[in-house]
């Protein structure tokens, strides 16, 4: 990387804000999807939006691609550095700037963790609803990039439903405000398309988020079933009875084992557990919860535990939220996939996955948001065994095709990132991808903002007059100009 460029970058951030030491850069070469690695040429850690603007402008001037990164917890390689590019880390922009309880809004910097917002407003009886399992560490900026959901998105929606406005730096370095604390800002809903765009359109420097008041009552049920099918039937019965729980989670035998070993939630030793949670006004919850209990019983629940207090409830959720990372205890390595299947197609897809497990010889654990059909198959492997890592990747890919074939989606929460680009062409046609990429061309005609992610083949946005300059995506080796 151009030394003069690095000097200019160093001048933008305070001393200690630019990382160029090789052994330091190593630690930024992947997010939580560890089998994808790339060393950035530099990492810069700004503290203000103005600094982010200056950095982006410098990058644009030099044709250097950049990748934004929160706390590096992404599971699709969205923060994977780009060759000959830099990483812009937002971990130091971590202040909660304003909390407006009467209007149920808060303004936060992108490096604030998801759970921190809830902790901060908890004394007022409020919380921030989207609750991905990594909420203790994942950043709001990252949540916005991935449109993160979490166990409670069945009732409460995703990040896009809880972010009212952002301040963002565009790839040309300009600062824009999309949406805001007041609803219905006139014009195109650019915020709606920015959320979930996986850091490819802009860098968020501030977010106005919606807070909710804690519901009057929360009732949580942990039901054990002798089979996944029985648990699935219980879910269908609940929906068919017109009940929309706040959350419905399912775990299978292998993941129950792992969670038990990790955090000892005292789950029943069985083939499937269902966690069903209802929340709302006490009158409503009490009545509906009784119905849920009898439906579960009717579907053959072998054990039923109702959380009697907050500690019990937290214990149950701890078991669920620790499930992924806990797999590290039962397997040397694992590959977590993220596919979505229409709920009505779940039994069929789960059957295919069981068959695949038997064929492939790799154990596959399953944790999923049963309420909305979002699966997280955990494919266990040992990278010390030659070829097994690639095999696991193949198996993960095959599961995605089952999801597509069942009319689902290749990613419910983790994003496409680098990991699932090739499957985009299975899920969408060329015209579909072309339409989406028009948005990218509007935001980032020079293709310098997290290039190479999401789309299998970038759409080059038209000729730039003047002497030929290689497109950053070309330089990164990701596309060819014909």
């Amino acid at each position, binding site marked *: 990387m151009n030394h003069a460029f690095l000097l200019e970058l160093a001048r933008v951030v305070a001393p200690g804000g630019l990382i160029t030491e090789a052994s330091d850069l190593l630690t930024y070469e992947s997010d939580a999807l560890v089998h994808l690695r790339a060393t950035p040429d530099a990492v810069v850690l700004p503290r203000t939006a103005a600094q982010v603007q200056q950095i982006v402008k410098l990058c644009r001037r030099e044709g250097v691609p950049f990748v934004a990164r929160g706390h*590096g917890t992404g599971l699709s390689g969205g923060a994977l550095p780009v060759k000959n590019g830099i990483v812009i880390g937002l971990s130091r922009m971590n202040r909660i700037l304003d909390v407006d309880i009467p209007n149920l809004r808060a303004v936060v910097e992108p490096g604030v963790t998801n759970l921190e917002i809830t902790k901060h407003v908890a004394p007022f009886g409020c919380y921030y609803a989207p609750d991905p399992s990594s909420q203790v560490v994942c950043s709001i900026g990252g949540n916005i990039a991935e449109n993160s959901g979490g166990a409670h998105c069945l009732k409460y929606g995703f990040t896009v439903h809880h972010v009212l406005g952002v301040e963002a730096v565009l790839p040309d370095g300009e600062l824009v405000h999309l949406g805001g604390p007041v609803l219905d800002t006139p014009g195109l809903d650019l915020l709606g398309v920015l959320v979930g765009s996986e850091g490819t359109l802009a860098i968020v420097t501030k977010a106005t988020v919606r807070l909710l008041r804690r519901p009057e009552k929360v009732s949580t049920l942990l039901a054990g079933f002798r089979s996944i099918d029985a648990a699935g039937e219980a879910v269908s019965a609940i929906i068919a009875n017109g009940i929309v729980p706040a959350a419905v989670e399912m775990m299978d035998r292998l993941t129950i084992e792992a969670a038990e070993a990790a955090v000892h939630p005292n789950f029943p030793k069985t083939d499937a557990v269902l966690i069903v949670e209802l929340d709302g006004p006490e009158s409503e919850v009490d009545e509906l919860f009784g119905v849920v209990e009898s439906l579960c019983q009717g579907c053959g629940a072998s054990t039923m535990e109702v959380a009697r207090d907050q500690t019990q409830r937290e214990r149950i959720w701890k078991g669920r939220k620790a499930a992924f990372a806990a797999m590290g205890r039962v397997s040397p390595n694992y590959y977590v996939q993220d596919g979505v299947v229409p709920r009505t197609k779940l039994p069929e897809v789960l059957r295919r996955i069981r068959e695949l497990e038997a064929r492939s010889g790799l154990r596959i654990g399953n944790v999923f948001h049963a309420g909305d059909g979002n699966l997280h198959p955990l494919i266990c492997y040992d990278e010390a065994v030659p070829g097994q890592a690639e095999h696991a990747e193949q198996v993960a890919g095959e599961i995605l095709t089952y999801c597509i074939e069942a009319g689902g989606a290749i990613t419910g929460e983790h994003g496409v990132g680098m990991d699932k680009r090739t499957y985009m062409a299975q899920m969408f046609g060329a015209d579909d991808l072309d339409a989406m990429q028009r948005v990218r061309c509007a935001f980032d005609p020079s293709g310098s903002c997290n290039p190479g992610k999401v789309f299998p083949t970038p759409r080059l946005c038209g000729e730039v007059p003047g002497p030929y300059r290689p497109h950053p995506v070309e330089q990164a080796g990701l596309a060819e100009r014909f």
Partner: protein
Amino acid sequence: MSTPSPSFASLAPLEPLIDKCVHCGFCLPTCPSYVVLGQEMDSPRGRIYAMKAGVDGRTTINAGMVGHFDTCLGCMACETACPSGVRYAPLIEETRAAIEHHHRRPIADRIFRRLLFWLLPYPRRLRPLAKPLAFVNVLRRYPGLLALMPLKLRNLVALAPDATRARTARITPESTPATGAQRLRVGFVTGCVQRVFFGDVNDATVRVLSAEGCDVLAPTQQGCCGALALHAGRDGEARAFARELIRAFEPTGVDAIIVNAAGCGSSMKSYGDLFRNDPDWANRARTFAAKVRDVTEVLSALGTPQAPRNRMDLRVAYHDACHLGHAQGVRQQPRDLLKTIPGVTLVPVAESDICCGSAGIFNLVQPEMAATLGQRKASMIAEAQPDIIATTNPGCMLQIGAAFRAAGQDRPIVHVVEILDASIRGVEL
């Protein structure tokens, strides 16, 4: 197969421990150095990644990397947070040892560390400092003068223990019988800094143990447990101290070996690891380690208190010393013990899982970061509005005391056993 770079060769056998890390990042928000510095290299995940890179031969130890390992406080909050069960303690200890063996620190650093390790583990050398301490305490009242001193020296002055406490230090009797029915026979580790500068704490410990039915044996020929050395990567020294301590207690045949300093207790409980490569000592070390208990652990395990408590109307902020809470998993017992005293209200402190910045010699070698953490801890405690602060580690007592003084406030800080002792004897603290 990749070969480890030479400086990381000693970590290669620990690769299975390194591989347990799945890079999830759950440790980041609880790691004080990541919270303060906000960069990956100063997080447990980043440090483990660097270790892995070293073992894979992708990198070698360099000054920058050493800096990132030096910012690790060894507080073990990451172990508590990790869902995959990564044992970070052996990894960081081995890495620190590797650094001491393969890396040459700048001369000033080396001299300072040499000095610390010449002094701190030797109570006989610490004792004569009691007199100059009085002078140092006075010096603290003149911030103008202090500002003229170099940072490390200024820091030492700020952290120095209270001279009056030091002057009243007595030697613990070799044998103290149980009061009333004997429930347990225990050995007592008198410590180094604790013995000299917090003699009151040792006295209170013995009294409370005795009152609760313990015969307390405190061999006079005991020295340092080696915790400070171990946590600073001086593994050879640590093992030497450990052997001496094990030898001092083996003849006593006690049921449990009691320690009232969290840092020491955690180190002693891991003696098995320390001697894993030494076939002669491995067993003896493990046997010793299995008997080690923090004083709050053993008192809590004895069950119903034998000695009646007198009422003390106090708002107590209990500070979890990292080496007790995270490293040993002992959190509830000290709280339960305080609750046996009628009139005591435990006020919860926010961010209780984040280190105060003491961390062994951390606050001596990384004064700026330690000060940031100390300030943070002091303000969290102040918010809870306690009458008194109780903890289980002398380092924490010094660090938090200094932080409050720096904020222009003064709060009484005592060891948990001192409150118990006052309640049992019916005296004022």
